[in-house]
């Protein structure tokens, strides 16, 4: 009982001094207090009244709900119970949240992050049983409410407004939608952010900015808007910290960004510097061969890598984009052919066929013609094909425009 009182005293203190971090810690599920209070909680019968004695509403409800999560969920070791009760806690908190100020944001983050983690666990339990996952959807519903509360906060003084939590919660939602493969649902919240009366992104904490750019970059990537994706992802990569207290996680973040950034850049015609691969071996393993193939115009290697790495790339969601970048390898090869022919304006088609053969792909003349035609159609090669003379007539200046300038 004493322990509980001590705990409640700490909570009460934090509330009175408006210390968001301390309060958040007291409500976090992986904090020490969870196990320290285990015994005491078991002996208490009427939690709500015990808590109600020390705290005022709405905090009494919130803290009581949290203790319920601990007592009936964690200590019972039932994941689904935890998820359900945490959901209830989130609901209680979100309802009260509209009347709160900026200092409570850490509490919001804690509750919602815990909610997400626990719902994932609960869903895994369900899936293992053969049921359908449903906890994540519940969580998303609740967190969306919190998002709305942040986004549309009307409190007069900007300093104390909850608007500052918008991007953090938005990122959490984006994360969850991505995990649930429902990226199509992100458009609504992104639109509301764009239309809302918020401070500009660069005023928000850098962590929020980087995460936000990562997700928007990723979504643009899936939407095949590669220019936009390149912009967002590059920003994220640059501003993402590389060293800090949690280097492992930071490195992982960098790799996540690179996973999408490299194929994007390949399509846009930029190859990564060799030192990049030294720093991030996993990325090197995935995309190394493609980069090499493009650099050398080695179409055979490219095709081979496409089939070898297919499963992995599909898992990471980048296979289609890498496949599309194949044409860049072809372009490099053809350009080399042209150079070998002294950069003349008239090169026989057979020469290109020979080049393909040397690169290791066996193709007949008609197919090479087809590939040349495609290059011209897409804009990678400027010129035309003369059927009668079976030659390629190239533009005088710059028949191979830089890849970056070719529309995707």
């Amino acid at each position, binding site marked *: 009982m004493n322990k509980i009182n001590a705990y409640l005293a700490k909570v009460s203190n934090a509330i009175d001094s408006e210390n968001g971090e301390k309060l958040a810690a007291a409500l976090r599920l992986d904090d020490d207090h969870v196990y320290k209070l285990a015994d005491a909680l078991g002996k208490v019968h009427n939690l709500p009244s015990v808590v109600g004695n020390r705290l005022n509403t709405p905090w009494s409800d919130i803290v009581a709900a949290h203790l319920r999560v601990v007592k009936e969920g964690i200590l019972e070791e039932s994941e689904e119970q935890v998820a359900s009760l945490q959901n209830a806690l989130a609901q209680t908190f979100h309802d009260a949240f509209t009347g709160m100020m900026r200092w409570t944001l850490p509490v919001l983050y804690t509750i919602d992050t815990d909610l997400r983690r626990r719902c994932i666990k609960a869903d895994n339990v369900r899936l293992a049983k*053969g049921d359908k996952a449903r906890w994540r959807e519940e969580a998303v519903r609740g967190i969306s409410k919190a998002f709305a509360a942040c986004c549309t906060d009307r409190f007069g003084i900007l300093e104390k407004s909850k608007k500052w939590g918008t991007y953090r919660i938005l990122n959490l939602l984006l994360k969850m939608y991505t995990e649930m493969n429902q990226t199509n649902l992100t458009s609504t919240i992104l639109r509301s952010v764009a239309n809302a009366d918020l401070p500009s992104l660069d005023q928000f904490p850098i962590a929020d900015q980087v995460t936000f750019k990562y997700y928007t970059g990723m979504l643009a990537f899936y939407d095949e808007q590669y220019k936009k994706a390149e912009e967002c992802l590059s920003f994220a990569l640059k501003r993402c910290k590389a060293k800090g207290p949690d280097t492992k996680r930071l490195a992982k973040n960098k790799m996540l960004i690179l996973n999408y950034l490299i194929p994007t850049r390949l399509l846009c015609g930029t190859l990564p510097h060799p030192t990049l691969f030294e720093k991030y071996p996993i990325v090197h393993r995935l995309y190394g061969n493609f980069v090499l193939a493009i650099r050398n115009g080695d179409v055979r290697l490219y095709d081979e890598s496409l089939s070898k790495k297919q499963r992995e790339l599909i898992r990471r969601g980048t296979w289609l984009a890498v496949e599309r970048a194949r044409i860049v390898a072809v372009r490099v090869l053809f350009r080399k052919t042209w150079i070998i022919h002294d950069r003349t304006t008239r090169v026989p088609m057979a020469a290109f066929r020979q080049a393909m053969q040397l690169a290791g792909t066996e193709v007949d003349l008609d197919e090479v013609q087809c*590939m040349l035609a495609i290059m*011209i159609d897409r804009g990678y090669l400027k010129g035309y094909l003369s*059927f009668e003379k079976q030659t390629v007539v190239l533009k005088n200046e710059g028949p191979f425009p830089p890849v970056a300038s070719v529309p995707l």
Partner: protein
Amino acid sequence: MGTQSSTGMNTSSIGTPASSAALYSQQSSATSQPLAYADVVKAGNSLASATSGWTVPAQPLPKPSYTYVAPRDQKKESTQNGTSTPGTPPQKKGFDSERLPQSLREYVLRAFEKAPNPVLRDRVQNELKVMIDEATRKGALWITDWSTKPLPSSCKDSVDGEQKGPTKFQIKSTMLPPKANVIDGLSSPTPKAKQASPAPGSPLIPAKRRKSLYLPDTALSKPIPVDSSSDSDNPSADETLKKLPPSQRQKEIEKRKERAKRFKTDDRKTRENKERENRRVREAFLAAGAEGNPDVIDWDEYTIVGTCKKLEKRYLRLTSAPDPANVRPLHILRQTLELLKEKWKNEQNYTYICDQFKSLRQDLTVQRIKNDFTVAVYETHARIALEKGDLGEYNQCAAQLLQLYKIPLSGNVDEFLGYTILYLILTLNRSDTHLDPSLAPELVKLLGTLTDTDKSGRCVSHALHVRTAVTIGNYHRLFHLYNTAPKMCAYLMDHFAERERLKAMRVICKAYRPDIPIDFVAKELGFLYPNQEDDGMAVVRAREETYEWLMEKGAVFKTDGAGGGKRTTDPTGDAKEKITLDTRASLPVFADLVRRVQAKGVDIKGQIH
């Protein structure tokens, strides 16, 4: 065959809550009237034990639409004996034998004797109810000679041989009371719809059907509120148990206990594997049949077996429980398939064939037959649909087939996997050479699940090459593949051939200057088959065909070959050999056509435009 006895009828005692039926009633909350009535009855009766007599309620009661069902525990007592052997007569409850003519009771028993199977029982009950109602209305209840009256027509549909239910079926008194209740107007609805599960092990009519006897049709789909306290101790199991029809619940609980016992002795790993396997199979089975209830394990009780002997049957969408008289059993269906194959070969009447196949598939679904034969039926229908270009029907069959293969059932997996890939390709609405982002994921997901063995199959590897060619825009390879397509892949490719040809023409017109020979187009676009290049006749034919096609599209031609020469849009006969395609002039034509094609989409059934 179940037992009957004259006492069976007695215990079906009208209005006796204790003996009541598996035929529980609608939830009482539906209307207030039944509730009040139930209270009256309850007040008037002592329901403590199964053997208690029943009392006639004081007031004459209106004919309610619900029947009163005893609380569960009482039911158990009363029907406990009945479970063990078919031969045990149900206990005699205090039944006023003057309520129903003995001959009627016997008649009813005879009728039920003929209907061991759930569906039949249902039908028989319906008929009996109707008959008895009529008789009551006419006041002819006691006058009619029930002993000589012919049994309800539904009884004649008695099934032989293939039925699975009979040994377990017992004509419980529980079956009969509702009717008697209705007749005498003494039935009372349950205050709370405590389900009365008859003795475990007796497969009575599934919930839905039973309800149809007494309740307005709208009641059919509503769930039955259950007193969960009477169910198993496991809280999470309550939910799943609730989904079961009450009759099954007790059985399910016991089954679970048994199952749990079984697993205790197993090694944990094997147990997990077994569970996983079971789940997977169950899911596949369910997915293939789209059954609503995920927890029903014993299919036998629900299987209908058909009795129809006619080979051919027109397709009618089912609006109610199927009548076995109209459903063909498996051995008949086998003959039907052969017949249909012959007819298709000889007559080529697609409307007829499609109709017949749909009814064939319906019979299979209704009887829950999922085996190699089912696979054969779907595969045949799919191929026929492909041949006729009916993508909607093809898609339905293909979707089912993929589920059936997962069960697993053997079939032409490579072939149909290949078709699936091609189908996905053709449903992509493309802009330029790019895939529509919203549809590509499905194709990519499928690619991710292919194993190396999958990929080495003839049809699948062909389809994969097609996919690559389409993505890259490699028309040369694409039309080569088109002309060398295995099995029926070409029929699928037909649907995007036109679209791809237009795109190819646009590329050609963009790249080549000043013109190209028609023969080249014929070759590249697949009008000329790969092995025909030396065949003079074939070349000429292909050239003609290509001309036709190009002209139809509005292409612009040149006479007198490359460089100079007049432009014309209408090449005349003799000069055809010298005619070439004017690429610069034709470019806008094809560019426009491509734009228009890509603006169209795919409709719901899977047809593309």
